[in-house]
């Protein structure tokens, strides 16, 4: 399987976006660059940009490895992507509004009713409710992979609580600190605008109860959450409060936070707590991460919750395969960004095909994330495939399968120079009074030679991602 390399053409050539970078790179001393890698690592350690790996007690906090070679996109490449992403996130919001109201798309026969009603991610409590400005999913991280010059596929629409945006910003910060000359030679579009954009987006969806300038807060499960660094980072950069469930309570129809001067109402809550834990009265009763009664306050217009509860139905992997139809249904135009061909194991023919071709497919759990509980057919052992086949037969509706894509590669720095590694891309999108997309996003890279798994919990690293101005 030969992968498309985004930087190098053959042995000598280089694709246009990388021309200036390569010229610079050739003048660098390899030893110095390796030293710089170490320097970058200590910068990240000092910043404390760490994540927790679930189920790994010993390494409570770890760094995501950072690779110095940037991933570079030409302006034209990016503009096309951004246009496709915007179409997709508008469709996602229209889909959510429809699903929680008239379900026209089901009536039109485009999406089967059983995938909605029987779906854990569908919240009956949201039926008939329309959040401020009609926005359901405000913050989205669209996972995109590339297989050729102009061939991009959307792998996942993360419409619940996508993470990684702090890495996008810190990676850029680190690169600018270490190689300022690169930014003088290349005109790279900025990513530091994200926190301001996020703040504006959130402020634009204030609830009816808000008087004057909206008070915004970020809700975190606390310092033991794997993404705590990011929660604190975003609150800090936006200049808003970082709250925990224990700081909040319901008073007179508003959600208020405990301050040194008593209680103050919150207008917009960017929550990084899952639906199930948001409100013990409405959802999981034993949860202490959220605040009792918030859902009722939300429905009465006392607070805006971003993203809205129940958005998970839009990025559900069972729904994913219907996305091309969904996009066309709501935007009236064919989807500009392609979906990866997907077999729904719930369908008998598809299941038979998947079981016959396990060695060439990637099989994923419908509700899984973070690369857990998936089978990568080509790299799995025979025994692993057989064990997975048993699970598949037991609960076929729990799985989808996709072909193993030859993900594009971008070189990483290794001892001997450059070596190609597979990458994906997560641009970050904000939906509010307008759609705001930060140019670039988070490039995740599988550091192990030949590996296709880019997840940080499974040995993936990250790169700074450049979108060139010209």
């Amino acid at each position, binding site marked *: 399987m030969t992968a498309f390399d985004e930087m190098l053409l053959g042995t000598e050539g280089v694709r246009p976006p990388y021309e200036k970078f390569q010229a610079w790179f050739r003048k660098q001393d390899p030893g110095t660059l390796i030293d710089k890698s170490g320097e970058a690592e200590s910068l990240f350690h000092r910043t*404390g940009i760490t994540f927790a790996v679930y189920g790994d007690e010993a390494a409570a906090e770890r760094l995501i490895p950072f690779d110095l070679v940037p991933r570079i996109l030409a302006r034209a490449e990016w503009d096309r992507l951004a246009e496709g992403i915007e179409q997709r996130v508008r469709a996602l919001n229209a889909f959510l509004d429809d699903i929680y109201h008239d379900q026209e798309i089901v009536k039109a026969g485009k999406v089967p009713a059983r995938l909605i009603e029987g779906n854990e991610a569908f919240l009956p409590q949201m039926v008939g409710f329309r959040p401020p400005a009609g926005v359901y999913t405000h913050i989205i991280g669209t996972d995109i992979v590339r297989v050729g010059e102009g061939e991009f596929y959307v792998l996942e629409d993360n419409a619940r609580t996508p993470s990684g945006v702090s890495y996008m910003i810190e990676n850029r910060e680190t690169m600018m600190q270490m190689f300022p000359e690169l930014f003088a030679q290349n005109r790279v579009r900025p990513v530091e605008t994200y926190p301001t954009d996020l703040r504006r987006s959130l402020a634009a969806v204030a609830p009816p109860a808000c008087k004057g300038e909206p008070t915004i807060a970020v809700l975190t499960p606390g310092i033991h959450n794997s993404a705590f660094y990011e929660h*604190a980072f975003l609150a*800090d950069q936006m200049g*808003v409060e*970082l709250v925990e469930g224990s700081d909040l309570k319901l008073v007179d129809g508003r959600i208020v936070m405990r301050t040194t*001067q008593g209680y103050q109402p919150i207008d917009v809550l960017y929550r990084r707590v899952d639906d199930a834990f948001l409100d013990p009265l409405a959802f999981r009763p034993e949860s202490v991460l959220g605040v009792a009664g918030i859902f009722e306050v939300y429905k009465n217009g006392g607070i805006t919750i971003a993203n809205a509860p129940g958005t998970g139905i839009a990025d559900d992997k069972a729904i994913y395969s219907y996305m091309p139809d969904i996009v066309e249904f709501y935007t009236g135009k064919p989807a500009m960004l392609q979906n990866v061909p997907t077999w729904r194991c719930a369908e008998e023919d598809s299941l038979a095909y998947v079981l016959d071709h396990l060695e060439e497919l990637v099989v994923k759990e419908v509700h899984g994330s973070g690369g857990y509980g998936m089978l990568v057919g080509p790299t799995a052992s025979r025994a692993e495939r057989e064990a997975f086949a048993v699970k598949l037969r037991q609960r076929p509706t729990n799985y989808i399968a996709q072909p193993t894509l030859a993900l594009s590669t971008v070189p990483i720095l290794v001892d001997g120079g450059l070596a190609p590694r597979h990458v994906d891309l997560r641009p970050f999108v904000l939906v509010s009074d307008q759609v705001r997309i930060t140019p670039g996003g988070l490039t995740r890279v599988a550091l192990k030679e030949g590996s296709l798994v880019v997840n940080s919990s499974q040995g993936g690293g990250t790169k700074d991602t450049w979108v060139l101005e010209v």
Partner: protein
Amino acid sequence: MALLGRTANGLFWMHRYIERAENMARLIDAGLRISLTNLSAGPEEWHSVLTSAGVEAGYRAKYAAFEPSSIIDFLLRDPDNPSSVVSSIDTARMNGRMVRTALTREVWEALNEGWIHLKRRLGRPVSETELPGVLDLVKRQTAYVRGAFHGTMLRNEIFDFANLGTFIERADNTARILDVKYWVLLPKHSSIGSPLDHFQWISILRSVSAHRAYTWEYGADFRAPDIIDFLVLNRRMPRSLAYSYGMIEESLGYLARTYGVEHECHQIARARTAQFSRCQSINDIIEGGLHEFLESFIIETNGLANEIARNYSFYPI
């Protein structure tokens, strides 16, 4: 922008634990110097260090004998001792992480880097020959945090809550150090004037990093009432009880002005500073019983900390 009660609490405790880590290093330093003089029987001196640190019970639960090496280990690197340097720096950093949004990048990075360095160094045993270097490292890393804090933080209520943590802890620590040694400073003490006493006194001053400062204020002779005056009433001495309370009252005053309201904690702090001001001579305190004075001072300071927590909603009710 509003300040969360939990954030004020985190700032308060972050600074209490930085102060504690630093004071612990000073205490160990004082113990080390005494034991190096050969004038004192080592273990007793170390025993009194444990008492000053308020962790004697925890130590006894773990060790049968007062061995210098196990005492040093317990005070420096034992995670089971909540006041050890390693635990203090861990707790300070955990609180710092929680209140990350209230700190400047410089303060957070100084704290995080200090934590990384100290964790690494204290992860392996420290021999007696390595001890001075390690204690220096502790003092240096905590000084970086303090320096970044003073150099970069906005003078608002965040600064005030952090300062309250520092000076409540400092007042408590200085009082404890004095209380453990008060018998050395009593006039009736039998070996008064002996070389042993001399070193004991210097050790007290050293444990608050003030043996040089003392001579500036009182001359070259170490006299018990002067040492007590220095550590209790002297307002130029940055670790004295009066100075610490002056800072506490000042920070509380800023908070009252910022928020436009006074609480019970203001009255408590004001009553105490007034008592210090009324006190003409340290002999008034010594005659009334130094030990009794210090004991009630420690309890009162603890009560003040609780009142601050209550008045500024540190915890959910």
